[in-house]
Each structure stands twice: as structure tokens, then as C-alpha cells.
């Protein structure tokens, strides 16, 4: 089964873009979506997708307080399955 990081990379590639360009998420996942320039509206939509796809409570607040995609992956993995 794909890792949480790989699933997040796919989710980002399929659903987020900046100025019509896909977002290049590095292998170490050390990228902040907010800092990268993803709009606040897109972050809300992304938070909903993460909550649905990983079946965890994940809100806009998590999107803005977790500083990188790596931290998002770690957060998801820390939730009781």
C-alpha cells in the first residue's frame, strides 16, 4: 500500500495548482502549501479532501498550523486508525 506521503503527493497533484501549474512536492515532503502560494480557498478544499481520503479530522486550522506536507503526513499517521 502507498505511504501516507505518496498518497498526499497524489492528492496534491490531482487537486491543487498555482497559476495553473501543478505543485512540485519534493520527495522529503518539506514544502508548505501556504508558503508555496496555494490560495486560502484551495487550502479549505484540500483540508476537506484530506479528511475524507484519510478518514481523519482535518481542518483548515491543521493546514495552516502544520508547517509542511511532511508534518501533515506525520499528523495523519499519528491518528488512531
Amino acid at each position, binding site marked *: 500500500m502507498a505511504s501516507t506521503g505518496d498518497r498526499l503527493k497524489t492528492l496534491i497533484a490531482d487537486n491543487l495548482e498555482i497559476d495553473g501549474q501543478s505543485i512540485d512536492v519534493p520527495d522529503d515532503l518539506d514544502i508548505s502549501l501556504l508558503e*508555496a*502560494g496555494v490560495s486560502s480557498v484551495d487550502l479549505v478544499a484540500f483540508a476537506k479532501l484530506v479528511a475524507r481520503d484519510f478518514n481523519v479530522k482535518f481542518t483548515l486550522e491543521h493546514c495552516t498550523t502544520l508547517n509542511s506536507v511532511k508534518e501533515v503526513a506525520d499528523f495523519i499517521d499519528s491518528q488512531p486508525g
Partner: protein
Amino acid sequence: MPASVADCWWRPFRKVGSAAVLYVDLTPDAAREAAALAWLDQEEQSRSQRFRHDGARRRFALCRAALRAILCSQLGCPNYQLAFGASHHGKPYALVNGQPAPIGFNVSHGSLHGLIAFAAEGRLGVDVEERSPARDLDGLIGSVMGPAERAELTSARGNHRLHLFYHLWTVKEALMKALGTGLSSDVSGFEIPLAMRRGMKTSTFRFSHLPTVRWWLEDLGNEHFAAAIAHELSPGSH
């Protein structure tokens, strides 16, 4: 900095009470971006280089350089004396020679448009968004709007629905930025005043958890973008 006003990529946009709002043109322009980068300090230049997307890099550099020019002009200080700190929630504030400066400001940018608001007193927040059709507008509405807002959006149709969504969203985000918590709070937990939901351009607002503080809200949107400002009113103001 640009040699003349004609070379500037920012210009006065709106006066909102004691606050001023400037528009920043974020259209791609290599000469402007080079001039902007030269105006940034070393830390800001490093941050700029870390952006992986040209558009994000451009927006940061053009807005930050414009902000520096505005603050230097307002505070009467040279650029090298100006630096920025950040609150716990990441809201930036100005420092001159390491001391907090007596001015509040807020910056927002979306695609090709930036806004910078500043005022000598009162917290303020500004937000600008291009009205991009969302893939899941219903889902977004369910996530960030309160019950009455959801009801109004449900009855709105087509383009009006999209405009109303971005209108409400920018007011909410401006309020959260003014409060200093950014988007780390539940934005569906408060609702924009009815008058503004029904088309009024201005209103006042109080958070239920902060009843002694009143905020001035104003719609700054036009045909190109949705935008709003929230500015803390002084206790004696009407």
C-alpha cells in the same frame, strides 16, 4: 526603488476611515521583479529564492518591496533600518532599528492583484481573491460558512453564487487576519452581518468572544477581484 512614480507597481486604491489601501500590480514584469528583489534584505531574498513557483516568488517580492517603500515613507526611515517580526500566529509587524514601529499593516495577494492596508492605530486585515470557479463550491460553503450564510448561498444561483461566496469569504479572512489568528480559527463559527450579505458595502462587526471590540468592514471588490478590509474601531468612534 523605482526612479519615478510612473515606474511604481503600486498605487493608492482606497481610503477606509483612517486606513489607507494600496493596490499592487502583480503582472509578470522582469524589470520590476529585479528592482523589487534589490530592495529586499538578505533574509527576504533567501526566502524569495525558496519559492518553487515563479508566480509565488513574484508576488512575494513585488508585495514586500512595495510594503517596504510604503512603510519607509510613512515612518520616515531608510530601508536598511526596516525589518519585520512575526506574532505567534505569523502576523508580521514592522521594526525600525529593532523597535516595534507605530504602524499597523496587512498584505494580501491573489494571482495578479495585491492589496496593502496600513493605519497608525487599530488592528487591520485585508484579503483579495480572484473569483476562480471552485471544484467543490458546495463543500467549501459547508466548511467555512455559518447556517444563515449557507442558506443565502443555497438560494443564490450561477455567477451571483460565486460572487457572494468570495464576497463573504474575503470579509471573513480579512477579519481573521485583523484579529491576528490568520486562518487558525473556525471561520464557520461567525457570520458576516446581514446587511453585507444582502449587498451593503460596509458594516460593523463584533466577535461574540470579544464583545468590547468593534470592527469596521468594507467590501473592496471590483470586476477583477473580490476583496475586503477589516479595521478595529477605536472605542469612541461611531
